[in-house]
């Protein structure tokens, strides 16, 4: 039945009419349902409409009808009212608790309501894990498709194809007759310029094909599926509404095009988009339970947990995922969400493990597990790597923001498809010749993280082995580098320069793109180069003072793989400014608790160096670029301005648009709504006394007047609108007055004009306000909205205040 919510402080809503045609939930055949879902996606995505009349049997047709907006919903690109959502949820809970004492069935219902949160978490974990497994397997296959195909079973990637073959040799572990490159398949030549050129050409063709498909699908079906998603999710979690951003079509297209984008060889990763995918799953399951679908505040709790599950499957790091959600993505993170996020992250990790995409029950491609110790003197190169990470982070953020700004404002933005194709073409042309950029970035990082034992045959591990050596596997002493290592070093240096430059232009294009993997690749390459340099210096100059104490000849002192890990952590920290979550993710990736100190040293150094140049990480920078109304909790406001300096109206502006308690007519209200575009109006006793009664939202006003004109008799333009309990005394000849007390918020937040802005910013942040009224000795002076606060903060930081675009 209709749930009648009664709010305290007389913040009531009009009784919801029983509209039989609602968008959610009717009976129907499965095929028709999925078919309808495909063609009418966002019709069912109006998961933000409350008041669904769940009668249990309606018709399928109602599902397809346009959703009717109700009082209490929010408009697109507006901020929610956190306090109202919280009080609605408290009322709902109180009603359930009071009813649960009536009968056993009500008690069971209250238990089910309490457990619905856990059920949602379970479903989110299952679906995120499944989707991540699908994405991993598909990327594995499609990346190899650029180079060749498996003849015995076309669905196998290179490694899977050669899995059972016995023709792999020690030196050529990848070769087997079942898998052939395209030039082998087409012409039969494997060696020589002809074969190489044909492979090169087909590699470029496949890369262009994949990226063209990706950008076309995004453009035609779900434009919100492009980019990383994390800046927008941060803004959504702080209370902003972007309709369709977490919808079903966005979910489908993001999953499909993410595979295409990563497989096309572009310098991007899939971690950020996986967070978006997981949040879409969260939104999807929220719509099944009215507890979450009708309440925007509760929904955001679920989304925080879903973000944790997304990072958990991306890295195989459940704890890191929860910390990432807590530190980077979420805005309000109550402790209850912590436990539930952990549960969702664990379920997602288990689901991914059971799908087993990498064949070894590992979760991530570059899971390494060595335990060679590190030495105190090595902290110097680790800190140097941290400095490099910080500098690279600054360079990347500045370059990327400049490029994205250019895309936003100039002609470049008018050709998104062409831009994607050109960047893919350049990437493919430059990446193919270098064996370290030809393969996928994940494989590159995996190879760089690996330690070189006696069993590796790659070029990077071409050390000069002592033929008489009899030591066991994991205690190989430091060896001099063979020629292969030197070749690998300069190839890696070229790869480093290439990746640094191309990632700046890739991140932010109109395809799903993440930047965790490219940052880690840059850091890993730099780290490995430094590691090999230190290793060779320690070997050849073991009598120098710095090496004498800790590195004796014949001992295994330096592990270049560890340097690669530290470099990766430093670069990732420099770009995103993550702290705790970064260290936890890195040590969950490696399984080595003994490496926490180097990782922390590098992360801290890179954060300090990067913060010296600019306060924002990449996500905050993108939020600022787009002008989202995001009030960052990390910023400190230390200026001495007062509320009067920020409030509207300023001197010279038209006076505040107010409604009076019982002397405004319907016509006046409609004129006010038409002439101004304010989101709400204060209600005062009268224009002379200007004492504040309450605040009324524009949307509620519009709907209430529209309802009244349609439903109530006698309401005409001259009818007086009153907000008091009893109708005002009017002569009998006047038309029937209209009571609108129900939509009035009788407890708007007010501050006095001498309140310091520091306190006002704190109030906005902690309570999630949208606007705050300014009074002096009880009389209304003005209003401060969130947009005004953000503009003021931007002005104080010497940034452009006009860049804040949304309310």
């Amino acid at each position: 039945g209709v749930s009648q919510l009664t709010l305290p402080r007389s913040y009531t809503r009009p009784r919801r009419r029983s509209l039989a045609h609602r968008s959610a939930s009717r009976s129907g055949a499965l095929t028709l349902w999925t078919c309808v879902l495909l063609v009418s996606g966002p019709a069912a995505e109006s998961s933000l409409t409350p008041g669904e009349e769940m009668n249990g049997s309606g018709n399928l047709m109602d599902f397809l009808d346009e959703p009717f907006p109700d009082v209490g919903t929010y408009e697109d690109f507006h901020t929610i009212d956190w306090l109202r959502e919280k009080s609605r949820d408290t009322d709902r809970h109180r009603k359930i608790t009071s009813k649960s004492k009536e009968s056993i069935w009500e008690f069971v219902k209250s238990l089910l309501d309490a457990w619905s949160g856990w059920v949602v978490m379970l479903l989110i974990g299952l679906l995120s894990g499944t989707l991540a497994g699908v994405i991993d397997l598909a990327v594995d296959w499609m990346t190899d498709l650029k180079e060749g195909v498996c003849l015995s079973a076309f669905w196998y990637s290179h490694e899977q194809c050669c899995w059972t073959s016995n023709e792999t040799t020690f030196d050529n572990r990848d070769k087997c007759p079942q898998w052939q490159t395209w030039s082998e398949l087409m012409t039969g030549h494997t060696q020589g310029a002809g074969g190489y050129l044909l492979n090169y050409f087909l590699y470029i063709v496949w890369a262009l094909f994949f990226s063209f498909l990706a950008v076309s699908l995004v453009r035609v079906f779900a434009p919100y599926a492009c980019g990383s998603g994390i800046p927008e999710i941060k803004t959504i979690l702080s209370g902003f509404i972007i309709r369709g951003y977490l919808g079903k079509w966005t979910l489908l297209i993001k999953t499909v095009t993410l595979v295409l984008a990563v497989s096309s060889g572009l310098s991007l990763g899939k971690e950020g988009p996986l967070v978006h995918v997981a949040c879409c799953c969260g939104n999807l399951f929220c719509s099944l339970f009215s507890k979450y679908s009708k309440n925007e505040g509760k929904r955001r709790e679920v989304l925080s947990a879903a973000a944790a599950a997304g990072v958990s499957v991306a890295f195989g790091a459940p704890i890191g995922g929860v910390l990432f959600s807590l530190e980077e993505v979420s805005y309000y993170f109550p402790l209850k969400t912590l436990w539930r996020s952990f549960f969702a992250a664990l379920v997602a990790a288990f689901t991914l493990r059971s799908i087993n995409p990498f064949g070894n029950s590992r979760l991530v491609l570059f899971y390494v597990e060595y335990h060679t110790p590190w030495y105190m003197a090595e902290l110097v190169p680790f800190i140097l790597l941290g400095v490099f990470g910080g500098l690279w982070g600054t360079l990347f953020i500045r370059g990327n923001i400049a490029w994205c700004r250019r895309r936003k404002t100039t002609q470049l933005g008018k050709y998104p498809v062409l831009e994607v194709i050109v960047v893919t073409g350049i990437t493919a042309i430059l990446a193919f010749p270098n064996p370290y950029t030809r393969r996928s970035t994940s494989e590159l990082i995996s190879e760089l993280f690996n330690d070189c034992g006696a069993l590796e045959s790659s070029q990077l591990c071409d050390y000069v082995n002592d033929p008489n050596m009899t030591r066991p596997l994991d205690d190989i002493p430091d060896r001099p580098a063979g020629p292969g290592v030197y070749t690998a070093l300069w190839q890696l240096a070229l790869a480093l320069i290439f990746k640094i430059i191309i990632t700046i232009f890739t991140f932010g294009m109109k395809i799903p793109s993440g930047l965790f993997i490219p940052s880690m690749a840059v850091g890993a390459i730099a780290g490995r180069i430094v590691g090999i340099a230190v290793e060779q210096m320690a070997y050849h100059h073991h009598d120098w003072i710095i090496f004498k104490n800790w590195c004796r000849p014949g001992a295994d002192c330096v592990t270049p793989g560890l340097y690669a890990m530290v470099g990766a952590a430093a670069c990732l920290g420099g770009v995103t400014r993550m702290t705790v979550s970064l260290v936890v993710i890195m040590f969950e990736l490696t399984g080595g608790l003994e490496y926490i100190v180097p990782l922390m040293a590098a992360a801290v150094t890179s954060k300090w160096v990067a913060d010296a140049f600019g306060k924002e990480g990449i996500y905050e920078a993108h939020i600022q670029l787009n002008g989202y109304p995001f009030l960052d909790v990390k910023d400190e406001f230390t200026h001495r301005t007062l509320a009067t300096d920020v409030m509207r109206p300023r001197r010279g502006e038209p006076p505040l648009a107010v409604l009076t308690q019982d002397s405004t007519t319907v016509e006046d209200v409609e004129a006010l709504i038409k002439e101004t575009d304010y989101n709400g109006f204060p209600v005062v006793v009268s224009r002379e006394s200007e004492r504040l009664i309450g605040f009324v939202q524009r949307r509620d006003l519009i709907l209430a007047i529209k309802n009244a004109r349609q439903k109530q008799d006698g309401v005409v333009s001259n009818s007086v609108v009153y907000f008091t309990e009893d109708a005002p005394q009017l002569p009998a000849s006047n038309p029937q007055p209209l009571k609108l007390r129900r939509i009035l918020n009788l407890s708007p937040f007010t501050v006095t004009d001498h309140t310091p802005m520091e306190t006002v910013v704190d109030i906005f942040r902690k309570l999630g306000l949208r606007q705050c009224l300014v009074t002096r000795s009880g009389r209304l002076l003005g209003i401060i909205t969130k947009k005004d606060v953000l503009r003021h903060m931007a002005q104080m930081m010497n940034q452009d205040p006009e860049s804040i675009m949304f309310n």
Partner: protein
Amino acid sequence: MVYETVTNPRYQLFSFACFLMMLSTAEVTGAKNSEDIRCKCICPPYKDVFGKIYKQNVSLKDCNCLHVVEPMPVEGKDVEAYCLRCECKYEERSSGTIKLTIIIYLSILGLLILYMVYLTLVEPALKRRLFGHSQLIQSDDDLGDQQPFANAHDVLSHSRSRPNVLNKVEHAQQRWKRQVQEQRKSVFDRHVVLS
């Protein structure tokens, strides 16, 4: 309320679909093809023996150098030294899962591509032929509008008033197209969201 949710047919349908999906995944991962397990031993070069990789389909307890390395390239007392350097790893994979995943992914991708081709190329051509000149005049007015779904509004106005299934589906589809067009305007044209 939870009660309504539980009796909600859509919820029941959805949970049933989820259950089926999980069952099929479990079934696929449960079946262990004999080809799907292997023990891989990598033995580096030793004295004058070249490095080699040995693979065999043995179970976990037999995954060691003595069982897998056949024929043993060294004699007698060298065997122990040789085997010490070898690293043997037990690996499992699920070929059924890989096949199922790739085929499902390719079919979804294929369907989306077909639908995209239909929406961008076939449907405008059909509509133009059906509605003739009046449509042409209107499409001339939106000169710069090369995007798909440009005729969403027009089609809505031409639809018949009979409330049947197909009509409703058509309406829903047009509404979806309008929403996507709005999204496309904010992302691609005005660059308001998502830079």
